[in-house]
Structure formats: structure tokens, C-alpha cells
């Protein structure tokens, strides 16, 4: 049976259709989920896509976390369902306290759109099994509130428990390397302790076809990873 992966649309979500395409290209069935519903429609995993839900008013992700759909997702995530938050979705996950820390305005104070080089720090999450630790990938980054921050103790904990999943890779900025926004310890993405919930600022769903965008397909492995996990369960 084909795995069903839900993609949530909040008011102001932008990358929902792109994420559905990525899910389809990875071989799963994308299922559209609406923020006002509570029913997860029997999906096996959920992606919270990027965008500006509720216009990022108040704080990015701050309003969406209170939606009926998020209530169900929070509950299911605590029970082990794989959840991936991309960009605004990552912000929603931190606001929902499924992941620690928060995102601040980029140090350059500008929106940054570029092909970003990342280092995958662990393959031990539901969404990174198809990578190898230490592998470098390039996927698009595009945000204005992308500067990951947390208190030093939380950061130490994340590192000690192997929950820093992606870091901005060191190298020449002109070639897409480097920390683009001042994120603490170059953190681009993290997971919860169980590894089923992952959030990151860059966009794997924009790197799934060789002709489109940057022409790289490094993002596809996020979705194939979760599929393998679901099949093996």
C-alpha cells in the first residue's frame, strides 16, 4: 500500500503544492490537510510546509500552532508519527513546543534566497535515514526570520543528544556555503529526542527535479527516508 503523507495548508501557506509534488515524486500519496479540520485522514506522516501562515503576524508560526489541525498533530507527534516542518513549518513546530528554540530575524535584516550548502549531521531521524552522517547537500534557502536561537543549555543538550540534524556547511559564501543568517552554532535543522519530529529552515521540496530551481535533487531523500521508515514499521 502506498504511504499517505499529509501536507497542511494554513492561511498564508505557500509551499503546500510544491510539497505535495515532492511527496508524489518520492513515491507516496500526498494528502491535503486543512488547518480548520481536526481529522488527519489516516495519514502516516505529516509535513508542515513553508510560507507566511497568518502573514507571520505576531510572530512567525505563533497563530498557526493554535489551529485545530495542530492540536491533532501535536498529539500524534508525541505518539511517534513522523512530522517534518520546513521553514514556516519549523517555526510552527517551535511555537508548538514540539522542538526547542526559536527563529529570529536574519542578522543581515534581509530576506535571503539562495542555494544553500548543508551538512547532514545525523541519519538517525525519520526524515534523514537515506543520508549518511557528514554528507553535504545543497537545497534552496529563502526566509527573513531564519536565525535559529536557543539558550546555551538547550544548545548543549541538542548537540549532546545528536539532535542537531543539519548545519550550514563552512566554505566560500559565493558558492552557497556559510551561515546565512547568524543561526547559533550554524544550526539549520533539529529534531526532537525521539527523532520523529524534524524542523529545518531550508527547503527540500524545492530540490526534487533536475530541471527545476537549482537543478539538484538533494531534497528527495527527505521524503524517501520517511517512506522507508513507514514501510519497515
Amino acid at each position, binding site marked *: 500500500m502506498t504511504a499517505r503523507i499529509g501536507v497542511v495548508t494554513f*492561511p498564508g501557506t505557500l509551499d503546500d503544492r510544491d510539497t505535495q509534488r515532492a511527496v508524489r515524486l518520492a513515491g507516496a500519496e500526498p494528502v491535503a490537510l486543512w488547518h480548520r479540520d481536526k481529522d488527519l485522514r489516516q495519514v502516516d506522516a505529516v509535513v508542515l510546509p513553508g510560507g507566511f501562515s497568518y*502573514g507571520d503576524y505576531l510572530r512567525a508560526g505563533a497563530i498557526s500552532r493554535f489551529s485545530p489541525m495542530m492540536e491533532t498533530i501535536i498529539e500524534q507527534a508525541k505518539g511517534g508519527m513522523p512530522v517534518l516542518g520546513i521553514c514556516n513549518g519549523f517555526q510552527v513546530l517551535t511555537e508548538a513546543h514540539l522542538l526547542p528554540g526559536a527563529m529570529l530575524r536574519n542578522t543581515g535584516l534581509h530576506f535571503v*534566497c539562495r542555494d544553500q550548502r548543508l551538512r547532514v549531521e545525523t541519519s538517525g531521524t525519520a526524515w534523514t535515514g537515506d543520508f549518511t552522517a557528514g554528507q553535504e547537500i545543497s537545497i534552496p534557502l529563502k526566509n527573513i526570520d531564519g536565525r535559529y536561537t536557543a539558550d546555551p543549555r538547550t544548545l548543549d543538550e541538542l548537540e549532546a543528544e545528536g539532535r542537531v540534524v543539519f548545519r550550514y556547511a563552512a566554505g566560500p559564501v559565493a558558492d552557497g556555503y556559510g551561515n546565512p543568517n547568524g543561526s547559533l552554532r550554524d544550526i539549520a535543522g533539529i529534531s526532537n529526542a525521539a527523532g520523529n519530529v524534524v524542523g529545518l529552515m531550508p527547503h527540500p521540496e524545492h530540490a526534487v527535479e533536475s*530541471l527545476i530551481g537549482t537543478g539538484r535533487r538533494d531534497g528527495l531523500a527527505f521524503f524517501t527516508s520517511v517512506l522507508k521508515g513507514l514501510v519497515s514499521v
Partner: protein
Amino acid sequence: MSLDTVKQAEQTPETGQPWKELGLKEDEYQRIREILGRRPTGAELAMYSVMWSEHCSYKSSKVHLKQFGEKAPRTDALLVGIGENAGVVDVGQGYAVTFKIESHNHPSYIEPYQGAATGVGGIVRDILAMGARPVAVMDPLRFGAAGHPDTKRVLPGVVAGIGGYGNCLGLPNIGGEVVFDPCYQGNPLVNALCVGVMKHEDIHLAKASGSGNRVILYGARTGGDGIGGVSVLASETFDATGPSRRPAVQVGDPFQEKLLIECTLELFREKLVTGIQDLGGAGLSCATSELASAGSGGMRIELDRVPLRDATLSPEEILMSESQERMCAIVEPDKVDRFLEICEKWDVIATDIGEVTDGVRLEITWHGEQIVDVPPRSVAHEGPTYHRPFARPDWQDTLQADDAGALPRPVSADELREQVLALVGSPNQASKEWITDQYDRFVQGNTVLAQPEDSGLIRIDEETGLGVAVATDGNGRYAKLDPYAGAQLALAEAYRNVAATGARPLAVSDCLNFGSPEDPAVMWQFAEATRGLADGCLALGTPVTGGNVSLYNQTGETAIHPTPVVAVLGVIDDVARRTPMAFKDPGQLVYLLGDTREEFGGSAWSQVVHDHLGGLPPAVDLEREKLLAEILISASRDGMIDAAHDLSDGGLVQAVTESCLRGGLGARLVVPDGLDAFTFLFSESAGRAVVAVPRSEEMRFTDMCGARGLPATRIGVIDGDAIEVQGEFSLPLAELRAAHEATIPALLA
């Protein structure tokens, strides 16, 4: 102030009215009185004043714009032409594409962030109103001198506004231009283009028909922003000592617009909309009068039903407000419930404000009292027409006689090398990445090519790979030297850019930015440019589908360079066949297509090295442009070239530098026989491109060019990490990159 009703207007013919303050001329006011057979009410006066503004009525320009219809080339591709919110083009496979370019110049000078943001918002709603899903935006921008302090105020605000609004809508920004010139000091040009895609059967029109159908206003509440934006702001020359115009600038909310887009597309999907119009310039005055005028004529509106942000607004203000993110739909009565349900789903406020009647008058009431009773055509489509005097300015001959070919040229290889570095690092030729990296180009996952490529290319069908390409170009320096040729050169460049990426050019949209039409010299430039563009479109077979005119871009007596900005839309059957600009395969051969002559008038070289503007712009040969485009498209389709880049401002050395930097590889070039190195590198002759040809394809490619009569000259090979011009100089890519990429951040960051 008491309510000025129709009844009252009939009884008090002598009441003084503020027609002058609202931007009307005396004869225009008298004509309104003649049309109505009485003095207008305050509300009617408000409507006429905004709808008869230069911005809405095209009163100075329309006698010239007529040519776009009269000289339109015969084509089967045009599904909807000039006059609707945007033109619609058939791109095959059942798809239709709509696109349009508009200006938001004046607001962007006064309030750069909101001016630019609402410029994006407005053009997106135009595209949406045609029934299409917006799929991409582009922004051709022009600012004063790069180093001027006011540029540092205006540019970052404009860029942040475009990004802040466009990024939030989920529309990839795939191209445009950024040009600096002192002539735009105080009059920046902020043009915005949007492209939308639909199926043929989904085309919607701005037309109210069917007596008894409901008029539904939906989207944001109406506030006091943007009142008189089109009349007092866009239709007058700025006066430094005048009052602050900021209340005339609209304030945007992209989140609301995103909801409006998704909501409207769902309304279309369920076929709930009979006619639709967005609310932009002139707000409700425009939407109601245009819908009624294009339909059967009769409409009754209860203005007090309009949801307000500010309860103290007068009916006149409500009619003139340009509050953003609003749409007006005509809906059959039995579909209203479902319509409102979908709006509720998207948290969009929707209000039934009136109905289509079987009469011929637009009637508006305010708490039961009639305040408007007009023939809608007289408001929307029968505004004044001016035949403004125009005359070739006496300085034109002097300007053209000041030949750029007589300027001192570099006398040594070292000097030539220095001038190349100065050129590629000059603000106009430098990399604009600092700006474009603030725009999302990836969203929607269909972007095949985006800036700095020759054109933006978007896939519109995942199965077949069908795609559309769009390029915008303009060169105010050329147009100043010769407005007729300048307009054609802008058209030719955009056409060439589309073809360079492998797409077949189909149609044109234009944004005509000029000074005050009250100056006969400016009016002559406008007349020449429109004539040139209409003739050019006829020759190339690409009809003008719509666009926008922006006049009064001048401060005091000083007008901007005449700046026609031309957008060309093309189609490519399979985006897999697109041609990018990067040189990325060592050993491939570099060919120069077209003829190179000593043409330096208006060139980047004359500007950068000599701060000079004079002489004649490059010669236009539209037959040659067509041939070049055919070759570029054939070569792309048949896999004969792996890269192509159009030659325009900055000439060959600029194009080769961009292609090399994009691909991370150098090139060894040889100056062809019959040319000197300087002309080879810096000439701006039109109708040219450079291409990268794999050695295995060389014979086939040169045979094709030879058979069709296009000069193709082998000028070098892709190799190494420097651009080397044999016998002249060698410039390491690292040095070129530093010069090319450091300029804009140094000026603005």
C-alpha cells in the same frame, strides 16, 4: 457636511464644487455638467475626477495608443486583446497565458516600501481577475545615480517592498532589470509584471450582465488610504514645495492578498463568477463603472453596505479609496450562498452591495438616498481625449550630432583591460544578486530559469513540459537619442532574450514611462516611441496585448529619459530544451551571431568611461532579429547549442563575462578579421548573441546559419579560468568576479 444627493444637486445648480482640487480641468467639469444635465453630486464629482484622470482615462496617450490596435499583426494566438484587465495568449495544449506590466512609479518615490509592494499587489489582481492563477512576477526598476543618497533611501525600500509583498504571495520573482541613471533622480520607475496561467475555458471578463445578478465586494475592508492616488498622485508633476502626498499612497497586506488569490481561484473552479474586476486605481468608482459600462449598463449599489476600516469615511472617500486587496464579482442569485461560503472558508469578508439592473444607469445610494445617477460609459470609457501638441525638440539634432564614435578610445592593451573591468563593475553592468537574492525565485516549484538568465522561464505543465518565457527590457539612453528606434530596440532586446532561452516570442505588453504630456517635446518622444513600438510589433508579428502608460515622470522642467519598457512573452514546447546562459563545458566553441559595427551611441562604454550621451543608437533591423530568433530556437530544439546569451548594453565583453562567471569557466577569444579589439568588445550593435556550440555540433550549426544567411563567427573556445583576448589581455575570472559582484553591495549594503 450634509449629504449631497442627486435631488439636492438638481435644486442647487450654483453650488461651488472643488473640481480643481480633485485634479479636473474647467472644460472637463463643464462637460460633466453637460452629460448629467445638472451639476454633479459630490460623489459623482469624485468618480469622474478619478476616472477621468490621466492614469485611468489615458486622455493624453490614447490617440497614440490606437496604433497598437490598428497596426496589430495578424495572429491566432491572441484570445483577449487590449482593453481587459490583461491580454490573454494561446500557448497551446489548451492553456492560455495572461501577462501584463504596469507602473507604480509615483507612490514608490513617496513611500518606497508600500509603493512597490502595492504595485506588485495591483498587477497580481489584474491577472487573477482574468481567471488565471498567477505564476510569476518580474520587476523592471530604474533609480537615480547609484551613489546618490536618495537612491539609498528609495532602492532598499522598493526592493524590500517587492520582496515583502511578492514573497508572501508565493509567486516566484523570475527577472526584471535594475538601471541607474541621474535622469531618474526624484522619479524612480517601479514597473511590475505578472504572468498567469489558465485553461481556455477559464477566461473571465470584467463585465456585468444579467439583470438581477448580485454585485459582491470581497476582500479587505475599505479604508482611507490611497484616496485620489490616480488623480492627484499619478497624474501630476511633483512640486517640491507642495503638501505631503503620503496619504495618497496605498498600504498593502500581502497575507490578505494571498487569501484573496486562493479564494478567487476556488470561486472560479466552482464556476460561481459571471464577471469580475479587481479594485486598483480609482477603487470602487472604477470597478462599478467599468463592470457596468462593459455590460448592459445598469447597476444599483448600496454604498453604505461597504465594510469599512474607518466608520467616519464619507461616500466620496469610499468611492475614491484605493485600499488594496479587494475584488468585485458579479454573481447569479442562486450562487451567492456558495460564493459566501467559500469566502468564509478563506476568512475573506464578502458583502452583497447591489445588483445588475436592466436599466442603463449606474445608480448609487447612501442609506436610501440617491447620490449617483450616471451613464457608466461616460465615466469609464468616454472620458476626455486630448490631442496634445507635440514637436521634435530643438536640442535633438545637437544631441544626435554629438557622435559617441568620436570619443577617445583606449590606446593600449592595458587601457582596454582597465576599461573592461570598469565596465563590468559599473553599477548598471554589475551583478544584481544583492537585490534579486531578496526575492523568492523557487516557490511553486516550476522555475526553470530566473535572473540573471536572459528570460525567466516557467513550466506550466508537468506532464508535457510546456513552458513560458518572459523578458522585460528598456533602454532610456537609446530612446533619448531616438525615441522611435529606442522603443524598437527595447522590443528587439526582449524578443531576443526570449528566443535566447529557446522560446518562441508570441506577444507583447508595454509600460510607457515618460515625462509630462503638457511638454510638446515629451509628447513628441511619446508619439515617436509608440509609433516605433507599433511598427516593430507588426514587423515581428507580436501583438501588444495591453500595458500601461505612466506620464508626469518629471521634476520641474526636467523629464526622465523617455523609457518604454517592453515585455515579451514566449512559449517553449518542452522546458527540457531550454538554453541557459552559462558557459560550463570546457572545449565548447564560442560563436558570435550577427554583425558587429562601430556603434557606440548611448552605449554603456560611453556612459561608464566618458559619462557621455550622444549620437545615434544602434541601427534596428527587425528582419535580422527574426532570423536570429529562428536560429536560436531551432538550435535549442535540435540540441545544437548548450548556452546562449544576448548581446545588449555593454556589448560582447559584458555578455561573455556573464556567461563565464555563471558557468565558472573562462574563455579564450580571438578578435575576428575586419574588427579591432575595441569595437569587438564594446560595440552595442543589435541583433546579436553569443552561443556555446559543442564541437560535435559545429558543422550542423554553421551549416544552418549559412543556409539561412545569418553571419556566425567563431570567436573562441571555453577554457581555463580567465577571459583572454588573444594579443590584448587576460583577465582572471576571480578579478572579474570581484569587480562584477562587489559594486552593488558596496553601494547599498
